[in-house]
């Protein structure tokens, strides 16, 4: 006996798609989301590469639609429900919430996702919200006509650097290597943009300022130091897995991410993983959603065999 047949932990595109499939399979299912549904996709202003939207779509609208779709099939979603621990080893899985209450299910899908990585340099924590940002679409407009820096060389960093030129007078991209990792078309946009400059082979060693960010201390790969005066710094250097609530001693993981097979199964029977929490190369909304669907079907298959 358990409260639910399936509990999905995480309400981003991955969890919502898993929930949609679970609801349509008429599983007794609960989706738990610690904040409001959406996850990382809420932080992007426009998505041009999620199929089915020729004009693109905003992160918020995409989530709004996914949520409405899942609710159409009566998916139960509990927002503001933070999972702080789990015991997944036995046939009945136990999920513990922040208020110490517990829920049980015979199967669980882990879709807890990831969050922005930090530089971990002096000044970063102290000046958070006062010039240090991890979300260009949230905070870009506060930097109208100012000079800012973007740290990173991947898709997020370069795409957001281009986005930020709508507001900032000058955007300096600082990357620790000599070439970018971003998709070709995104790189081309950045190189063609007159407001964007690049500082290569360099890293930020400190963020300084009195009541807000005023300058960055840099060091290049040869040890040469420099200072860059900016009023804002956008740190877009990748992600770290949201794995604090996962039972690491029970689950097989690689570098903090979940190890799964092609059917999104983890090493534990009845436990599936999907989305950015999984160990994989590509982290996009489209494959997160796809993995959510596969995980739900694996869960359904597992429950049928119980």
């Amino acid at each position: 006996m358990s409260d639910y047949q399936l509990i999905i932990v995480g309400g981003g595109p991955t969890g919502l798609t898993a929930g949609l499939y679970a609801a349509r399979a008429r599983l007794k299912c609960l989706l738990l989301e610690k904040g409001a549904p959406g996850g990382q996709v809420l932080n992007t202003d426009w998505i041009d590469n999620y199929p089915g939207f020729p004009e693109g779509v905003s992160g918020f609208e995409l989530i709004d639609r996914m949520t409405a779709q899942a609710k159409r099939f009566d998916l139960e979603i509990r927002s503001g429900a933070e999972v702080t621990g789990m015991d997944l080893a036995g046939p009945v899985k136990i999920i513990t919430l922040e208020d110490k209450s517990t829920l049980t299910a015979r199967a669980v899908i882990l879709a807890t996702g990831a969050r922005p990585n930090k530089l971990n340099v002096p000044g970063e924590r102290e000046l958070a919200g006062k010039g240090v940002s991890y979300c260009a679409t949230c905070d870009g407009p506060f930097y109208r006509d100012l000079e800012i820096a973007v740290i990173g060389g991947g898709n997020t960093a370069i795409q957001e650097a281009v986005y930020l030129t709508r507001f900032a007078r000058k955007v300096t991209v600082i990357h620790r290597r000599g070439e970018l990792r971003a998709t070709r078309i995104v790189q081309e946009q950045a190189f063609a943009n007159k407001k964007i400059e690049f500082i290569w082979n360099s890293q930020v060693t400190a963020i300084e300022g009195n009541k807000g960010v005023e300058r960055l201390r840099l060091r290049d790969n040869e040890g040469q130091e420099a200072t860059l005066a900016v009023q804002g710094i956008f740190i877009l250097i990748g992600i770290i897995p949201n794995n604090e609530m996962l039972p690491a001693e029970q689950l097989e993981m690689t570098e903090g991410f979940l190890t799964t097979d092609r059917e999104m199964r983890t090493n534990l029977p009845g436990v599936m993983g999907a989305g950015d929490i999984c160990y994989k190369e590509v982290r996009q909304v489209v494959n997160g959603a796809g993995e959510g669907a596969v995980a739900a079907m694996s869960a359904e298959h597992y429950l049928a065999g119980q």
Partner: protein
Amino acid sequence: MAGDNLKHLSDADFEATINGAIPTLVDFWAPWCGPCKAIGPMIEELANEYAGKVVVGKMNVDENPSTPGKFGIRAIPTIIIFKGGKVVDQVTGAVGKTQLVAMLGKAL
């Protein structure tokens, strides 16, 4: 009914509101900010649950340029709790209801 308790604040009535008799919670937001919209429903819930005990308001930073600057706000969503016109607590980012309830508990 549902929207009645949530105040929409402007530069004009801000000072008067935060200097009121009971604490005020202000959610600084903007329509282009995804995480701001995501926490919108939760802020409305707080407005209803704390009616009479805390004034819960939202301020659109696009429409009200002067107030956010006074409080050094350069990132949204930023939620500030005021008591007697003074900042007693503040958080930036799409935090969960539990965290805000805890902050309100300390302020009351």
